[in-house]
């Protein structure tokens, strides 16, 4: 608090001493940028989508975020773009021009009541400005707007608009050289974007240094990383609380390994601040979990994946944390540090009860370490939620097997949502180890797994359902990874006979 935050808001430089934990959503609306709407304040509807640009190798690089989960303090030196900042002309009066994205949304009836529309405009614009022409695709556009809810259109008109946008952008030819001026030329962005790189560069060195470490830091500041869950749980208190933004440079100065992904011999080291997006896009991760893209769209929307961190997901300790369960099955070890004091804890040993961690309040999760893949590694992730994409799981499950010459030499199956913590199905794993898969072995494993599940009734499903899911998702792992497994053999004699 009290520190000044300087950043670009659309085409203006803004300097503010508002609390650093204040939400960007509230801040921009107070400045009469009311196109950014509040729909849920928990990152589930996308009505408050914004772009956040930062210099990356001298050029501005934009990410899509929901302003309801982003702290103001983190915007220092960055470019925040609201829907108004995408308008080709500033005037509200007649003669307004529409960008290509806006024009097609109008033309195809992609907007009805209009409340969610600015969020869609921002997300669609983001997609066309960050994607190379050759890579533009329907699927990519879908993914970009997957975090935006619309209750009026049923999405079909929005998809028709999206197709038209893609066609127009492709027809205009891929922007050559420096992208931003080309995008301005193509009427996708207003003219001020052409010089935004220079303006950000001017601002970064002297005008917005990383804020000095807050004066006398209280004994247990609130650690805030991506904020995607913390703001939902404690949104009311954060703006006034002593917050330590883990994304600030002073944290990385103290704990350099908190950022970045490193391949170190047989070990893959993941900085705790690695976002889901960074994790999924990294070569080494993709080798270990080849089908990561298939799992990722189940896990969160793009704006959330851009913010949510691996470390945050683990420390948040939700029993149904998707990434945590994946990392648990992969066999993660954690590095916790407090100053120079550091220690290793296996992820499977971290949780002592519901939201109870083997972690001191001042201790920070710095690094997550995984064993890299061998020639025999097989990985899978399963998740069932009410809505297939972008929903919180009823039950999710990760699996890592090592199979040599038909024998399972290693079997680790995690299960989220079937107990108070993310859970490794230890008994199932031990049972499978050293075995060849046969219908009898699979059948036995399924009943052991169902027995290991100790779920409760809650809004995500009845205990009976979740116990059944534990069984079915293990069967799904087997079906996905091992061709010889016939799932129908494990669905009851009536079905086996009926087929």
């Amino acid at each position, binding site marked *: 608090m009290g520190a000044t935050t300087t950043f670009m808001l659309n085409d203006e430089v803004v300097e503010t001493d508002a609390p650093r934990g204040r939400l960007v959503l509230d801040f921009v609306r107070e400045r009469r*940028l*009311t*196109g950014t*709407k509040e729909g849920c*304040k*928990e990152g589930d509807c996308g009505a408050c989508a914004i772009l956040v640009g930062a210099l990356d190798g001298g050029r501005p690089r934009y990410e899509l975020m929901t302003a309801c989960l982003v702290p103001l303090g983190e915007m220092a030196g960055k470019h925040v773009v609201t829907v108004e900042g995408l*308008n080709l002309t500033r005037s*509200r009066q007649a003669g307004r021009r*529409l960008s290509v994205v*806006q024009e097609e*949304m*109008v033309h*195809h*009836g992609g907007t009805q*009541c*209009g*409340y*969610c*529309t600015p969020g869609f*405009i921002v997300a669609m614009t983001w997609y066309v400005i960050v994607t190379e022409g050759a890579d533009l695709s329907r699927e990519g556009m879908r993914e970009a*707007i*997957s975090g935006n809810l*619309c*209750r*009026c*259109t*049923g*999405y*079909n*008109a*929005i*998809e028709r608009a999206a197709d038209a946008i893609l066609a127009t952008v492709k027809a205009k030819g891929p922007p050559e050289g420096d992208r931003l001026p080309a995008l301005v030329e193509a009427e996708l962005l207003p003219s001020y974007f052409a010089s935004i790189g220079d303006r950000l560069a001017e601002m970064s060195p002297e005008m917005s240094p990383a804020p000095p470490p807050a004066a006398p830091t209280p004994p247990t500041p609130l650690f805030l990383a991506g904020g995607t869950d913390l703001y939902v749980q404690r949104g*009311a208190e954060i703006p006034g609380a002593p917050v330590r933004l883990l994304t600030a440079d002073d944290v990385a100065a103290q704990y350099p390994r908190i950022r970045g992904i490193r391949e170190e011999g047989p070990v893959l080291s993941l900085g705790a601040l690695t976002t889901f997006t960074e994790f999924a896009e990294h070569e080494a991760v993709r080798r270990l979990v080849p089908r990561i893209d298939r799992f990722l769209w189940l896990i969160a929307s793009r704006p959330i994946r851009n913010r949510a961190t691996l470390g945050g997901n683990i420390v948040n300790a939700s029993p149904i944390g998707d990434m945590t369960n994946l990392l648990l099955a992969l066999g993660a070890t954690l590095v916790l540090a407090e100053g120079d004091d550091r220690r290793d804890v296996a992820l499977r040993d971290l949780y002592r009860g519901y939201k109870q961690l083997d972690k001191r309040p001042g201790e920070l999760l710095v690094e997550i370490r995984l064993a890299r893949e061998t020639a025999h590694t097989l990985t899978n992730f399963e998740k*069932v*939620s*009410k*809505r*297939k*994409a*972008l929903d919180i799981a009823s039950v999710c499950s990760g699996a890592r097997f090592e199979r040599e010459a038909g024998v399972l030499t290693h079997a680790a199956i995690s299960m989220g949502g079937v107990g108070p913590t993310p859970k490794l199905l230890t008994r199932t794993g031990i049972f499978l180890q050293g075995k060849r898969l046969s219908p009898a072995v699979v059948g036995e494993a399924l009943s052991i797994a*169902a*027995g290991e599940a100790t779920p409760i*009734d*809650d*809004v*995500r499903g*009845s205990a*009976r*359902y979740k116990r*059944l*899911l534990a*069984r*079915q998702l293990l*069967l*799904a792992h087997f*079906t996905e990874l091992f061709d010889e497994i*016939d799932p129908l053999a494990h*669905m*009851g004699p009536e*079905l086996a006979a009926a087929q």
Partner: protein
Amino acid sequence: MGPDATVRNKMPKPPPHIEAPLHVRGESEYVDDVAPPLGMLHAAVFYAPVAHGRIRRIDTGPALAHPEVAAVLTSSDIPGTNELGAIFLDEQSLADEMVHYIGQPIALVLATTVEAARAATHLIDCDIEPLPVVVDPRRAHDAGDFHGTPRTFRIGDVEAAWADCDVIVEGSCDIAGQEHLYLETNRARALPQEGGRITIASSTQSPYSVQRHVARVLGIPEHLVEVDVRRIGGGFGGKEDQATYWAVLAALGAYVTGRPVQLLLDRVDDLVMTGKRHPYEADFKLGLGADGRFIAYDVTLYQNSGATADLSPAVLERSLFHATNAYFFPHARIYAACCRTNLHPHTAFRGFGGPQSMFVVEAAITAAAERLGVAPWELQKKNLLRRGQPLPYGQTAEEDKAVETWVEAEETFDLAAWRARVDAFNANHRTEKKGLAVMPVVFGISFTKTHLNQASALVHVYTDGSVSVSNGGIEMGQGLTTNLATIVGAELGLDLDRVRIESTNTTRVANMSPSAASATTDLNGHAAIDACRKIRGRILQCVADETGRAAEDLSFRASQLYDGAHAVEEWDWPRAVTACYLRRVDLSAHGFYATPGLHFDVAKERGRPFAYHVYGTSVTEVTVDCLRGVYEVDTVKIVHNLGRSLNEVVDRGQIEGGLMQGIGWMTLEELAYGDDGRLLSRALSTYKAPDVYFAPDLEVKWLESERPAGPRGSKAVGEPPFMYGIGTYFAIRAAMRAFAPRPYAFDAPATPERVLLALHGHHVDQPSSQPQPQPAPAVRPASAPAE
């Protein structure tokens, strides 16, 4: 309004949505986007934390002591009457003695910031003696605890007809409600003005309801209350009656403090405090001849109405009207009751009770088909309603469109080949199965309360030729402003840029009906036509007098005067308007419309409640992953009956959006309540509505009617497409039966949990697992042999 005028002026080419350019630039203003007035206070509601109880004591002192709190109001601060309600006066704006549901407002905190107002609600100390809670409508029914009295529609003699039936099936349904999920939560802003007047900006579908109730609660005449609505960020029925509470509370705060007050519900509060689509339970009995003809249908509908009546009796009435959907039954008895429970008062939602009773009849038909071993569509098609056949409330079908849309769908979409593809897929896939369902819809247009079928409009023409139109309808995304501008442009012969549709304002248009019942364009469009024709007549007469031409030969097209087919070069619209002004001709007119020919006798439950019906048929294909219990809606193809579309983009948007809401209701959208009446799915992280990935491939084909009664030959389109979504449920069921042909229960929505437990629940019900009370059985016999 003869058809002559329709022919005379060609329709101007409408824009896809007249407000869309504002929306995409983030410039459209909703209630709290308008710059706040100086000194505005923010309000937050303290609500009942228990579902039933007696208030022993309220201590607002600790909240009042909060430094940013200006006032805390309770029922004793209400200057007028504390009784409100759309149908019965059984609600209170702030509870004084008893509370009947979790979320019922008890006190209003006013503070200088919204954060402080919300924080201070937690400081209120309220002691409530808990009383027994009822959440089950059947229990309320057994206790005789109703809103209003149960009603019965009858046709033929159902009791005698069972003897003629060769097959009889019986079963029951449990149908959950649905959250509206308008993206803009409820909100209102009230400004006190001189002389005790108060102006309110409200996100409401019913400005007159707000005006009427504010006047009651403040104890002032209605003419001191002005309600203004530019647009709302989605309504779907959720703001038809339930926006009123929040506007009344904001007005009360403004009245008491003398300062502007804004009340904005955050998402969680909106979910907890406001009612939803009604959950229904139902028992059905269907009798058929050996040839598959329907002979007799008996249904009992238990509407879970919630704690107060709200619009429940009217919703119930539409359940009665649509209980036989698109089919003819010679004998039927339809009984329905509004059962009072300790839940938030359930309310209007697109379809308004129609979807629930249509679901039940489709369930009955499906049960019969499964018993007979035939596909449901064989029974559906055989029994479609034909022109001249009576519905159980006396009105006869005036068109043959139920059959025509069905046949069109069958042919255009090549249903036979489609079925073969699905069968082939199922033969080739072991754990993935496809299902197909056909869903015909017949939906009546008009408010079922006949007196609501009236509307007014006020049209001004200024001397520069620009036109201002006020009407009684609310723009909520459905395209009303676009339709009205199109209608006015066509009536006056103007380009659309001369026409502005104003905000909806109770001082300009009095006694308006809510924007609901799919009838907003119908009613307000006709009223605007009436006003336009008055003005047009005067202007043409004036020009005739000026130019010595015959008024009846004159018209405007694209703002140019025509004498017959010839343009009169020197006379364009602005010149004509100026000439009228100089001749002191009135350039303003009030228009009025009352739908003709409507009547309904509640004592006899007979009449002609609807101006016309809208018809359509949809076909839905889904794929169920029978290993995981999850599914995808692959394709929906629709033949929809319209009049002459005022705007194809708008109409298509209504069909697609309505369908998607219907699909959501039948699948993902699950309102979970505890036995204590607490809503468990109270955030968007737990209440899941369809996202872009859930949208099916969609094809819509129009089938036009010959002489539709809507303005300029159109037909209403808002609600009927919702019910196409019901097909999704039965397609999922068909896929499940392709995997394991069992008599699954007819409980909706078909959540992944229900699907998986129905398919595989037996795996976790082995005696080895510890015994525990089971929730609703996954598999329940739907059809039992008749006596």
